[in-house]
């Protein structure tokens, strides 16, 4: 019999019941909650007279809707100027209090983007099933946790039953072998993967990322890769456990201690695909061939190399794709065959659940250090993923580097990734963004998003247009010791 994939192992470890039609009940170890996709779930519980099945499985924090300016944050919830946002954040507080769920409130140092907070607290552990009413829950798969983004009805279902109704997915392995070039990052890997397989390429699959280039990544980099599995259509992204995983989790507040830690570590070492496991699909990518990536269109698959150019729709055979390209170029205000380095920018956003962790901020700061944001850039902002990331960055002096270069240094939250708060693009503005989606209107009505790595975003802020970060003097060299 063939061996099991990591996904197969996680699935069978959580299978409560499987129906004849293939629908299964799987047990959920951790649910992360935020203010946008939970209010209707709590209301549903209340209307049905139900209680959460297991309180300690849940952890909540407001992130999507919170303001990021210090002046608003200084006053906590009452500082939120938008009355509709305020109601939503307040509703999360009220629901967590009423039902007895642990919450990191707006000005708790541990508050932040759910997908930064979970791992940072050790609330995400290998071998867990993790859910959250947010598609980027795939992030937690970097810890060999089976993590699904779910809708609000499912949030309510998990609160009430500790289970999720699911159907087993197919297995895909994306193997990235070799060494990444200098200045090429985890973000470039995942954008290149999406460019290769398309935004629906992973639909119906759990994608396991493997290969030496993935093993070489830090946990922050691995989270960036798994985070964007959903942009390739896969609800689940996964990476097997190794020593890097285990060292990241040691001494985290929610992680086990003493003998339990030892037992857990022994168990976690099994959370890798067996050597003889069979995948339904395998995609192989040579790390050495990956260049820094920039998206040019309105879907994450519309992405190319920094040395490349905007494609010519006339060269596309498939009619649906061609019309999509034409529409995207019109929306983005770009011309066919325009060089990527000629795209001029108005705003720069460094943040989001994809790229707001300490390593991301270090990468960006290395490029920003001693430089100035171009005069043509109206706003360049850095939004740390959590209060603890912010504190760490400040301890390392990164905030001063950004401020001296002309970036704004903000309070943690989802911010301009989806622009639910005041951080947004104006119509027609081009933004170099370290976030995950370049959909029409995503960062603001009429806004034009280009997805890039933190280093590429910082370099673009300084140049005022896209530049190859590898050509910037010193920016990508290791720091002197």
């Amino acid at each position: 019999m063939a061996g099991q994939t990591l996904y197969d192992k996680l699935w069978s470890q959580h299978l409560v019941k499987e129906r004849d039609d293939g629908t299964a009940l799987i047990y959920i170890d951790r649910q992360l909650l935020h203010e946008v996709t939970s209010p209707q779930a709590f209301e549903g519980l209340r209307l049905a007279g139900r209680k959460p099945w297991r309180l300690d499985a849940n952890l909540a924090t407001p992130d999507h809707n919170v303001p990021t300016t210090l002046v608003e944050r200084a006053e906590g919830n009452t500082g939120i100027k938008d009355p509709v946002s305020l109601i939503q954040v307040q509703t999360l507080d009220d629901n967590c209090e009423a039902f007895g769920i642990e919450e990191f409130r707006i000005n708790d140092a541990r508050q932040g983007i759910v997908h930064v907070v979970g791992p940072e607290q050790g609330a995400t552990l290998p071998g867990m099933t993790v859910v959250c009413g947010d598609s980027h829950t795939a992030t937690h798969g970097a810890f060999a946790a089976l993590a699904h983004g779910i809708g609000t009805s499912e949030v309510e279902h998990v609160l009430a039953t500790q289970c999720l109704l699911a159907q087993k997915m197919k297995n895909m392995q994306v193997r990235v072998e070799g060494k990444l070039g200098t200045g090429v990052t985890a973000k470039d890997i995942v954008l290149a993967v999406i460019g290769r397989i398309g935004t629906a390429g992973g639909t119906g699959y759990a994608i396991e990322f493997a290969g030496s280039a993935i093993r070489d990544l830090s946990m922050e980099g691995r989270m960036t890769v798994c985070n964007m599995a959903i942009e390739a259509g896969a609800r689940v992204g996964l990476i097997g456990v190794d020593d890097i995983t285990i060292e990241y989790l040691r001494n985290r507040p929610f992680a086990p201690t003493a003998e339990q830690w030892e037992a857990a570590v022994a168990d976690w070492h099994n959370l890798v695909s067996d050597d003889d496991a069979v995948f339904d699909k395998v995609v192989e990518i040579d790390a050495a061939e990956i260049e820094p990536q920039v998206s040019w269109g309105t879907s994450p698959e519309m992405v190319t190399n920094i040395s490349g150019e905007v494609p010519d729709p006339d060269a596309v055979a498939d009619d649906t794709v061609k019309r999509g390209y034409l529409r995207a170029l019109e929306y983005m205000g770009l011309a066919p065959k325009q060089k990527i380095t000629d795209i001029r920018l108005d705003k720069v956003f460094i943040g989001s659940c994809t790229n707001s962790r300490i390593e991301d901020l270090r990468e960006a700061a290395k490029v920003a250090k001693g430089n100035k944001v171009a005069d043509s850039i109206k706003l360049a902002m850095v939004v740390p993923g959590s209060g603890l990331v912010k504190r760490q960055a400040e301890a390392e002096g990164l905030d001063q580097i950004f401020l001296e270069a002309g970036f704004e240094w903000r309070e943690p939250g989802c911010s301009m990734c989806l622009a639910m708060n005041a951080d947004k693009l104006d119509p027609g503005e081009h933004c170099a963004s370290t976030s995950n989606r370049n959909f029409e209107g995503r960062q603001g009505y009429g806004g034009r998003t280009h997805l890039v790595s933190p280093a590429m975003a910082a370099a673009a802020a300084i140049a005022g247009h896209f530049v190859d970060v590898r050509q910037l003097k010193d920016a990508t060299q290791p720091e002197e010791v």
Partner: protein
Amino acid sequence: MQKFERHQGLVAPLDRANVDTDLIIPKQFLKSIKRTGFGVNLFDELRYLDEGYPGQDVSKRSLNPDFILNQDRYQGASILLARRNFGCGSSREHAPWALADFGFRVVIAPSFADIFYNNSFKNGILLITLDEEKVDRLFKAVEANEGYSLDIDLEHQRIVTPEGEIFEFSVDEFRKHCLLNGLDDIGLTLQDEPAIRAFEQRHREARPWLFRG
């Protein structure tokens, strides 16, 4: 949940691939803490010429005359015909809430994104996957014939066109059962409470570090 057995309705064609959930319902409308009222902002950025915000008087907004749902011939449509990878992007259930609130009961496309697929069935919306060639034929028929409607029979898993042509479709048994009977998932799952308790006990013994306290 509203039952779905058989539905006859007018078809509106949205001729565009990769329609994402941000396009179905933009984020500024996700600030609501209710499940209803999203219909007026369905496809907001395509439907209106100005920028929408929560709580505004939509009757004062200027409509985009080129958008299908603003055209006279598609008024009252309850079946949406779409292209591949419909519903990609975020997990916001506000997307199917907006479609349902507007009056859509069925979406037909060559493929759907996974999370959107789950969310729709939980809100009484039937998603039908047909191959590209059939979807293409339906697009041509809808565009050529004003008042084009389809008869959707979930029980027998078939679509009947005005010409009498039949397209069969597949849907998994559990989702079909829930839709036909308007069943609430939570109630069904709680019938398995003993199995869940027993599993939880074994799981706690095998991996106690997954439980705090």
